[in-house]
């Protein structure tokens, strides 16, 4: 692609402000009709409707475009907006008569789905949401309304900015964005998010679990003649406080990796809690 064409593509912008706003609002309903056959397909198509209406005036062209965007699509919801931007830019070029085949557009979509989820899942689901939720919940358990508010406002601000600027970025950069997605800058961001996320998870395993094991192991009288009671808890705490929670975390990770449904692990832990309380291993 020559330099001249590239600048042309970046500055053209056939979508009006209204189109961009409409696409943004539609994109916030991306997963509405999530189904097991093509997942987010209808949502993606509905989000592309303003662009399709803008670029194609012929009924047959419109039908073709709609069909292309009803193909399988699935990625992390919020950073899907940059993909929509790229696709809108490609549709615009195609409508203008440039040699872009349906397969090209589909390939870009499919090609971006995986890397975007690879960036989006750790950043949004692995770090931003759990960290904000932990902060919110820590305030909420003492009954403060600030907790839910911090979480709700914080996470939605992140989401809206990602969608709004993501779409514009994708639309302006077009297929050039692929270099960014696979490049170092976003990888850096993902790694930073993962470090922060894992650090906070470690802290939560230690502090936001409560396991009490009042089981008495030994009763004896020390040299000064005072009676001493050794509980399982005191012995484990002497080793490392929070050790049991750490082991349970690793147990859960192991089971999850073996594709055990999380809900069964949770039920198993309920059973463990009831049984443990009954035999006196765990206490309140």
């Amino acid at each position, binding site marked *: 692609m020559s330099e001249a064409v590239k600048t042309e593509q970046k500055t053209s912008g056939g979508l009006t402000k209204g189109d961009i706003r409409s696409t943004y609002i539609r994109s*916030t309903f991306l*997963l509405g*009709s999530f*189904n*097991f056959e093509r997942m987010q*397909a*209808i949502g993606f*198509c*509905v989000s592309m409707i303003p662009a*399709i209406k803008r670029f194609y005036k012929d009924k047959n062209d419109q*039908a073709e475009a*709609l069909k292309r965007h*009803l193909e399988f699509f*699935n990625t992390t919801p919020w950073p899907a907006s940059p993909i929509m931007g790229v696709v809108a830019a490609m549709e615009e070029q195609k409508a203008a008569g440039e040699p872009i085949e349906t397969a090209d557009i589909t390939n870009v979509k499919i090609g971006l789905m995986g890397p975007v989820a690879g960036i989006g*899942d*750790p950043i949004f*689901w692995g770090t931003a*949401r*759990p960290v904000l939720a*932990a902060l*919110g*919940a820590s*305030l*909420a358990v*003492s009954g*403060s*309304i600030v*907790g839910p508010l911090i*979480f709700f406002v914080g*996470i939605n601000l992140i*989401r809206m900015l990602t969608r709004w600027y993501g779409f514009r970025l994708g639309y302006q950069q077009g297929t050039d964005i692929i270099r960014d997605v696979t490049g*170092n800058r976003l*990888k850096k961001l993902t790694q*930073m998010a993962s*470090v922060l996320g*894992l*650090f906070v*998870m*470690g*802290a*939560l395993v230690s502090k*936001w*679990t*409560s*396991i*009490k094991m009042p089981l008495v192991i030994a009763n004896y009288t020390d040299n000064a003649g005072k009676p001493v009671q050794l509980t399982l808890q005191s012995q484990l705490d002497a080793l490392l*406080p*929070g050790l049991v929670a750490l082991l349970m*975390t690793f147990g859960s990770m192991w089971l*999850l*990796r073996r594709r055990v449904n*999380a*809900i069964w692990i*949770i039920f198993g*832990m309920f059973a*463990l*809690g*009831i049984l443990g*309380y009954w035999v006196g291993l765990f206490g*309140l």
Partner: protein
Amino acid sequence: MSPLQFVLVILVALVAGMASVLDERQFHRPLVACTLMGLVLGNLHTGILLGGGLELIALGWMNVGAAMAPDAALASTIASVIVIVGKQGVSEGIAIAVPLAAAGQVLTIFVRTITVFFQHQADNFAAKANFRGIELCHFGGLALQGLRVAIPTAAVAAVAGTQIVNQWLAAIPKVVTSGLQVAGGFIVVVGYAMVINMMQARVLMPFFFLGFVVATFMTTLNSGITLVALGIIGICLAMIYVQLNPEFHDSIQPPPGGQPGIAAANDLDDELI
């Protein structure tokens, strides 16, 4: 419960159900859904407490790829109704919420299978370039997801607080309720495990252990403000990590072709000899 409250409860459940599939505005998260339920049921305080407790358990519940998380929406709305209208404790509410999350998961799988039909309808509309038809298919699926939470919540709200339900809840033996409360203390690790697994970053696990040990020996962590301090430490570690990581340094990558390092080492060997 007044008729107005009943309608508002259904409305909140509808929004939570739709949010649960969208994963967009987070109205399905316990922290938000329980708070809203508390607001419409006239007991905001209890709603926030329950939301905070449930959020900890649901912290790592997420939809990644085609895998589906336990459903926080149904769990939050019904647990709120049972705790606030049925006058139960927050810990009982949390215990009830978990089987509800499983039920909600089954229901959403059911709806996500039904919407395959909408997908094929959308194909037909696309062939005729019928924009409105595709939009209808899309938001029809969304409405079903809302109803999937709203209908069961309405059913529970209609009977909650009645004599029979209270007797039934009171009949649960103490060893079960206490055991469930005990389990509530460590069930949260499943959510943490989900987050850690999703990261798929074995090389970064030292940061997990660092967080664990730092938190264990920062004994004042129970208040919110020190979680912020912990976050600052985490961000600092993250920045230092990428700054020092040779992977992100173009300047110290070995020049293409030849191995100057080894050559230099050989020269040194020669000198020593």
